[in-house]
Every structure is written in C-alpha cells, then in structure tokens.
C-alpha cells in the first residue's frame, strides 16, 4: 500500500461520510460508513484537490489517477477539499443524494461554505492531536531513559576494591541518552582480581539490557575460567545467540595479581589501555573481535608486569571520541599523553575530566558515556612503605632560625607535586612550627643534635616527618588558645605553635620511641573542595 499524507489519511479514516449506495435510502437516523480510499501522496488527484476552489464533481473529472478510480468505485460523487492555509488537510466525500437528484448549485455553495469553516477547525484539531502525540512520545523516551539509567546503575560496582599497595580509581559519567558503558571488579581465587571495562553499541534500554546480560555472564564465568582469553571466548559464545541484531559489545578483561603486579589481559575490540611508566606511556595491545558478533572467536592473551609507580588507564571511547563545537575530536593521542603525565590514578581521572570539559566547552551535551578506570601500583604489598616515594631526607642542626632551612628544603622537595598557592604556604608554616618545636623542645637548642626531616608522597598524600632526639615525652593535647585571656594579660601571649600546625595541615600524627619523637604532617594531594579553612 502506498502512503498518503498522514493528516489526509487521518481525515479519510475518521470523518463520517455519506456512503454512496444503490440500496434503498436508509432511514434518516441510520449512520453509514464509507469505505476507506487510500490516496498516494504523489497521486495527481492530491495536487488537483489542493488547487481546487470548491466542490469537485468526481463523475466528470478527467484525470489519470488511481485514487480517482478508487473514489468512483466507492461511489463517491462529489468531493469537497478541505484546504487550510493552502494545505490540503482532508476531504469531504459525498455519495449520491438520497433523493437520487444531482447536487444543486445551492448544495455546492452550502458545502463550500461548510468546508471553508470546517477546514481551519479540522486543522486545529489535527495540530492538537499531533502535539499530544509528541508529548506522549517525549514522556515515553524520558521513561526509557530512566529505566536504562536504573539498569545501568544497578550493575556498576558500589565500591572500589581495596588492594593493599594499589590505588584503584573509577569514574562513570553517563550521557543523557545512556550508552552501554560498564565496568566491574571481580574477585578471583588466589587474591587475584578481574577488571572489566566494556561498551555496548546502541543506547538506551536495549543497550542497558545487553550490558546487564554481559555483566552477569562475565561474573559467572570469570572466577571459573580465570584466563582472560578463555573468559572472553566463553562470554562471546554465550552472547552470540542472545545478541539482538546490529548490536555487539566491546570489552577489555584483565586479571591482576596484586602481589606481583602481573596483569594478564585480552581485548574484545575495546579501546587499548594506556600505562604510565617511568619510561613513558605504553599500550596494552591484544587483538580480538567484539563480543556477540560471530561464534567461534578466539582472543589473544597478553601480559604485562606493572612496576611500582605505574598507572594503567582503562577507558571507554566516550572520552577520546568527544567532540568540541568545531567538531574536532578529543583524540586518543591526547588521552595517552595525559596518562603519561600522571603518577596517580585519581589525579589522572580528575585531569582527564578537566581537560575534556575545557575541550568541549560549556553547553555541549555529553555525546556518549564516559568510563575511566585506573589501577596504580604503589609498591609491592607488605613492604611496609605503603607505596611511598621519598622526595627528600635531610637534617638541620638545632639552632634557632634553622626552621627556615627546613621550610625551604621541603618547599623544593614538593615543587613537582600538585600542591601550590595557599596550601603550600600552609605546609611551609606547619613545617616551620614543627621544626621549631623539635629544635627547642625536643633537642633543647643543642646544635649537635639534628632534627631529621623526611618528605614522602604516596598516591594521595604528602607526608613530612620531623624527628627530634627528645625521646619519649608527653604529647600535648592541641588546645585552641584563649585569645581573650591572653589579651587581658591572664595568660602568656605564647602557645600558638601546635594549634597552628594542626590548623595548617590535613592530618597530624605523632610517634615516639625510646630516643626519638616524630611528628608527621599530612597534606592531601588531591585538590580539596573549598572548605572553612580556605
């Protein structure tokens, strides 16, 4: 069946018509239905009716038109086109008069007047219906989006795995029209952990459902099969039969042994992960077809060993393939370069998102889901260092004023970290005060006794440990000085040191042994949200 303009079809189907009939005239109250006559949009009759100035006599009309034949077959004698603002929006089809007489000039005038009044009213009704249909459609889409989001969130990990000596970070940012991104961490035997990042083609509920299925299969098969290539082969076999047409899943599956840093991985057509190493950025390449496309697929399995300080980035294409207003792409090289600059997974995620936001600019809707998973090796578990890197270790003699030496050296040592401006000033003040305490109270201003200062950083914190030779001494409670009492002369004006230290840093710890007293100052390296202190 050919199509006809939707508004016209609607009128043809819904307008009650006089049915042409040779049957005896029906009783006045009897309603009759005319058969539907389909009119193709390219039928010459449409153009003819559009230009007609009044009722058209079907019997005498000379036109090569299938629709005209149809109207005649249906017994239509007279057609009054309903035209509103130059647009043909419907037809009044009339059969023979019940009196068997021809339509008179008066009849035609009446019908033309009626059509002139009815056409705008019918058009308004059509517009209202169209608008209602659009609203319903929008509501349906919104509802679908909500369902897709719900499914998606249901299957994302609620928390990150706690791996001693490793820093694990993850970010999932759904596009408004939810894509099929997912990531997962799967506990495996022998303290190993499976890491999944995947992307289902398509969007919305269908993608979310495929994602849920893939997620479930992976969870079931990974602990049993372990080897990434075997896991992906198996998942592919199970998905092929279930996969809706034109859909597939890209997926990177890796198995990490946290104790050794050994990372085995296989890739089903997903983005290549990047690794930030001391030597620069490397890629974890392995070949394999996306899941769910073809049966009998095999997946290449490779492995890498992550050294302390290495950070892996697993990512979906929502980031690298994001566009700006000029339709330029964020690009994989940029993602790789940023990964190379990072020595911390959390900082890397923040940096990538910041760069992405600056690249796309405000007002552009996120095109696709963005998933980022980072895996940073601090150190081998159990070596006691907690993944710390030593930035500086030095001593100053216990002479008044030498706290300035300590301040300057610490400032130099942390120059490469993400600690600047006021937070660096805070650290410097805290280091100065703590060193002063060590010189005066711990080492009693004896120049031959050194104050030892060690600056270390792990993935999240900078720590400055200041040790004097004072041995065990009571650790005073940090009290807020009573300024009113000091101003009134009721207390000494002094006594600000420890209070200042505590207010300057994010963490303050003390440790003592028989000969030493150590104060540890902690500053978080990740930029904090503005708080009462800043």
């Amino acid at each position, binding site marked *: 069946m050919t199509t006809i303009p939707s508004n016209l079809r609607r009128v043809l189907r819904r307008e009650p018509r006089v049915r042409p009939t040779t049957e005896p005239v029906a009783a006045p109250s009897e309603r009759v239905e005319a058969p539907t006559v389909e009119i193709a949009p390219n039928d010459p009759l449409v153009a003819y009716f559009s230009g007609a100035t009044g009722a058209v006599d079907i019997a005498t009309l000379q036109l090569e038109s299938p629709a005209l034949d149809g109207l005649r077959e249906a017994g239509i004698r007279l057609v009054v086109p309903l035209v509103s603002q130059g647009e043909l929006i419907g037809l009044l089809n009339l059969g023979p008069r019940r009196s068997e007489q021809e339509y008179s000039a008066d009849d035609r005038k009446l019908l033309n007047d009626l059509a002139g009044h009815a056409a705008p009213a019918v058009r308004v009704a059509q517009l209202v219906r169209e608008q209602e249909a659009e609203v319903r459609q929008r509501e349906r889409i919104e509802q679908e989006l909500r369902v897709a989001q719900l499914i998606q969130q249901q299957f994302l990990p609620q928390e990150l795995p706690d791996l001693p000596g490793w820093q694990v970070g993850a970010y999932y940012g759904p596009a408004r029209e939810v894509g099929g991104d997912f990531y997962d961490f799967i506990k495996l035997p022998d303290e190993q952990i499976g890491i999944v990042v995947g992307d289902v083609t398509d969007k919305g509920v269908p993608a979310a459902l495929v994602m849920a299925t893939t997620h479930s299969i992976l969870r079931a098969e990974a602990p049993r099969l372990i080897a990434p290539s075997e896991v992906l082969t198996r998942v592919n076999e199970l998905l092929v039969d279930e996969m809706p047409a034109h859909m597939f899943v890209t997926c990177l599956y890796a198995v990490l042994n946290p104790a050794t840093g050994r990372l085995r991985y296989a890739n089903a057509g997903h983005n290549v992960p990047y690794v930030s190493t001391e030597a620069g950025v490397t890629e974890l390449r392995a070949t394999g077809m996306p899941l769910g496309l073809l049966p009998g697929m095999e997946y290449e399995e490779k492995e890498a060993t992550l050294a302390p300080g290495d950070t892996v980035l697993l990512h979906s294409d929502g980031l690298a393939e994001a566009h700006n207003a000029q339709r330029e792409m964020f690009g994989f090289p940029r993602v790789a370069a940023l990964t190379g600059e990072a020595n911390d997974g959390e900082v890397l995620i923040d940096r990538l998102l910041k760069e992405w936001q600056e690249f796309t600019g405000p007002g552009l809707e996120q095109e696709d889901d963005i998933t980022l998973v980072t895996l940073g090796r601090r150190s081998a578990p159990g070596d006691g260092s907690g993944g710390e890197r030593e930035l500086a270790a030095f001593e100053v003699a216990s002479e008044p004023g030498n706290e*300035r030496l300590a301040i300057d050296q610490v400032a130099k040592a942390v120059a490469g970290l993400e600690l600047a401006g006021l937070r660096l000033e805070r650290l410097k003040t805290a280091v100065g005060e703590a060193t002063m305490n060590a010189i005066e109270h711990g080492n009693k201003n004896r120049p031959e006794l050194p104050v030892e200062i060690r600056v270390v950083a792990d993935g999240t914190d900078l720590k400055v440990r200041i040790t004097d030779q004072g041995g065990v001494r009571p650790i005073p409670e940090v009290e807020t000085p009573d300024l009113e009492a000091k*101003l009134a002369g009721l207390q000494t*004006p002094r006594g*600000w040191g420890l209070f200042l230290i505590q207010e300057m840093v994010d963490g303050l710890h003390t440790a003592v042994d028989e000969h030493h007293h150590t104060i540890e100052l902690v500053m978080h390296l990740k930029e904090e949200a503005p708080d009462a*202190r800043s």
Partner: protein
Amino acid sequence: MPGAEFGAEVRQHDSTGVIDLHGEINLGADQALLAAYESAVRGDPRTVVLNFAHVDYINSTGIALIVGLLARARKEHRTVRAFGLSEHYRQIFAITRLSDFMGIYPDEDSAVTASAAAS
C-alpha cells in the same frame, strides 16, 4: 638559616602612628617591635597601624609578639589596625582570631581612613 632580619620604622599619617614592619617576625623581633610601638605612641595617638607589606615570615612566636602588642594597646585604649598582609597570613590572623581584635585592611589609606573615622 638567618632570614631577613626584622626591622620597623615609625611614621605619622594623619595623626595615626604607622609602623612599617619588614623582615621576619620571630623571637628576634621582640625588642625592635616593642621599641617601634613605643615610638609610635609617643604622641599618644588613638590608633596604631601595622604595615605588614614587607613582612615575609611570621612564626608562632611572632604571633605571640603581635598578641602582646595588641594586649598592651588595648590596655592603653588604643586601636590597632593592620594592612599589607598576604592571603596566607590573613588566614592565619583569622584562624588565631587576631582579626577579631585588629581590623585588617587592604592598604594604608583604608586602614588610616578607618582609623580616623573610628577615632
């Protein structure tokens, strides 16, 4: 490491005693700060203004000296105001609550004008 030595000069600005501080305010600044204050109040001004624009370091002992100076000024019914503090030291003055008892101004004119209006 010996830092920039503390020094203080006193001058009058619209009958307000202004003390220009420079260097480090630490234990070593004790006597010089006291002398500067005494010089600044010789004409018995109602207000003393401290200029921190050339101070690059204040430690907790320096805070104690400023508290001592403020305590004495209050005893003598004088107002103390300050300007030229870096953002970091403005924060420290807020944390220690010194700024509750000592008006902090962005520059000398606003500090002195506020002083004149208040006195």
